[in-house]
């Protein structure tokens, strides 16, 4: 088992106003993210989840502790490009991460920066656009595309670096349900077919349904960590942290309180229905 990313008692504080004590956004995070896994990081606004994400590719550097990317220390300036090439980042607002007026030129931006030879750039651009299902749009102008399409272009722009890991920092927050579905389907496919490690930061609980692992951040620390089933069965804890639970879990939780013998970990509608029907039959 090898780690894609490892943090050791990671601390981080944003610069404070003069005379004020710095407020720590991360206060000791120990996390190991396994290669090839699909990890969702949840938390309310201000829980430190976005700050954490930005330490994964040295956009933010630890104020205490360490972050290792495939064993490379993010504090080592000489490794900066190597680290950023391994861990790609997709941000919330699609408009603010697209550099070029033509789709293919935008996707080519990172390989160009890396000094990849021209024929190889062409191959990577075509491959990346195909991987996100946007190969029809090679010569389109990005600003005329839908939100979900723009975000897929941004993902392609990252994939063209041939990274081992993609971090999506609330990349679905500004999308409509269709756009959100497009992006989720795309990253699940990249995870399964290409073995790319995916770290999805979100506050949409239902996006965590199909993850391998869910990490819940609160107050700069990891609060819950486990499979989606394990995490979402902590109904009371999640509510306490200002998060909701999926309606399926909410329903099962209510029924359990009425003495029903149902599990809490049936997240998907179909599984939930099966659990409820099973409990009704038992009687």
């Amino acid at each position, binding site marked *: 088992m090898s780690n894609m990313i490892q943090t050791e008692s990671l601390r981080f504080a944003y610069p404070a106003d003069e005379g004020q004590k710095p407020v720590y956004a991360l206060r000791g995070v120990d996390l190991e993210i396994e290669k090839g896994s699909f990890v969702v990081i949840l938390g309310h606004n201000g829980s430190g989840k976005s700050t954490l994400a930005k330490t994964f590719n040295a956009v933010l550097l630890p104020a205490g502790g360490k972050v290792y990317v495939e064993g490379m220390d993010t504090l080592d300036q000489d490794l900066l*490009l190597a680290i*950023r090439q391994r861990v790609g980042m997709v*941000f919330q607002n699609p408009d603010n991460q697209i550099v070029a007026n033509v789709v293919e030129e935008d996707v080519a931006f990172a390989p160009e920066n890396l000094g*990849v030879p021209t024929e190889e*750039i062409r191959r990577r651009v075509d491959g990346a656009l195909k991987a996100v299902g946007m190969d029809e749009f090679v010569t389109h102008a990005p600003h005329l595309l839908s939100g979900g399409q723009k975000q897929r272009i941004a993902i392609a722009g990252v994939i063209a670096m041939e990274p081992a890991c993609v971090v999506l920092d609330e990349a679905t927050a500004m999308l409509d349900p269709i756009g959100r579905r497009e992006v989720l389907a795309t990253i699940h496919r990249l995870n399964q077919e290409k073995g790319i490690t995916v770290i999805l930061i979100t506050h949409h609980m239902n996006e965590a349904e199909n993850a391998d692992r869910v990490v819940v951040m609160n107050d700069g620390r990891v609060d819950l960590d486990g499979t989606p089933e394990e995490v979402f069965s902590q109904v009371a804890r999640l509510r306490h942290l200002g998060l909701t639970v999926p309606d399926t879990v909410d329903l099962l939780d209510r029924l359990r309180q009425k003495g029903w013998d149902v599990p809490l970990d049936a997240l998907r509608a179909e599984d939930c229905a099966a659990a409820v029907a099973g409990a009704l039959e038992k009687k």
Partner: protein
Amino acid sequence: MLKDITLGQYFPGNTAAHKLDPRTKILLVVLYITALFTAKSFLAYGLMALVLAVCVRVSKVGLRALVKGLKPVLFIIVFTGVLNLFFTPGEGILWAWGPLHITSSGLRNAAFMVLRIMLLIMGTFLLTYTTSPISLTDGLERLLNGLKRFHVPVHELTMIMSIALRFIPTLIEETDKIMSAQKARGADFESGNLMEKAKALVPILVPLFISAFRRADELATAMECRCYHGGEGRTKLHVLKYGRRDYTALALGVLVLAGVIAMRAFGR
């Protein structure tokens, strides 16, 4: 209404005009502008109009889009036309009223000026319509490459330019949105005197600037995440290469300019 501004817009295509090397196109525009300012006769302007017509035809950019590009500068065109029409001194006064008079040379000048501005704008717009901003700035960067020796930051300047062009449509859209939002709160941009009108812009400009700074900040982070570290060691998806097409086009351009110079020399 702001959406009418077509400056910096690019219409993707696959025509000969699109395929020309951007350096060729920039040089051609320079030749074209020189020729326009050399032209002094209807014959010469006719030739230039013909050249433009051929280019428009080849590029398959609709004439409508080009004419639309003239809209924002309509005022300047009309103003220059009127100025030349009424205030050109000369013989053969056709009409006069107080200090205003129309002379035959005034008529001629006005026609030339209007033609010149229109041809100039349509010609340069044709360049941005058929050249993606990235390849345009690429071409510019390569043409100005020699200046690097004098420590001119050519790569940085052209990068700034291409990003500015990239964000024009985004910021126009944003301005529209902010205007609608403030109108929904009863903002009035139409009535009042000049001072009041200027004041009415504050609720648009403040949010627009704040948002532009936020965007710039986020974009810088996103670029860094994609391993941007200046122009050093960068490669390109599209490598610029002069082909036979480019040499032909440049030769034709030089020929047209020579023609216009000849017309002027021979007073035709």
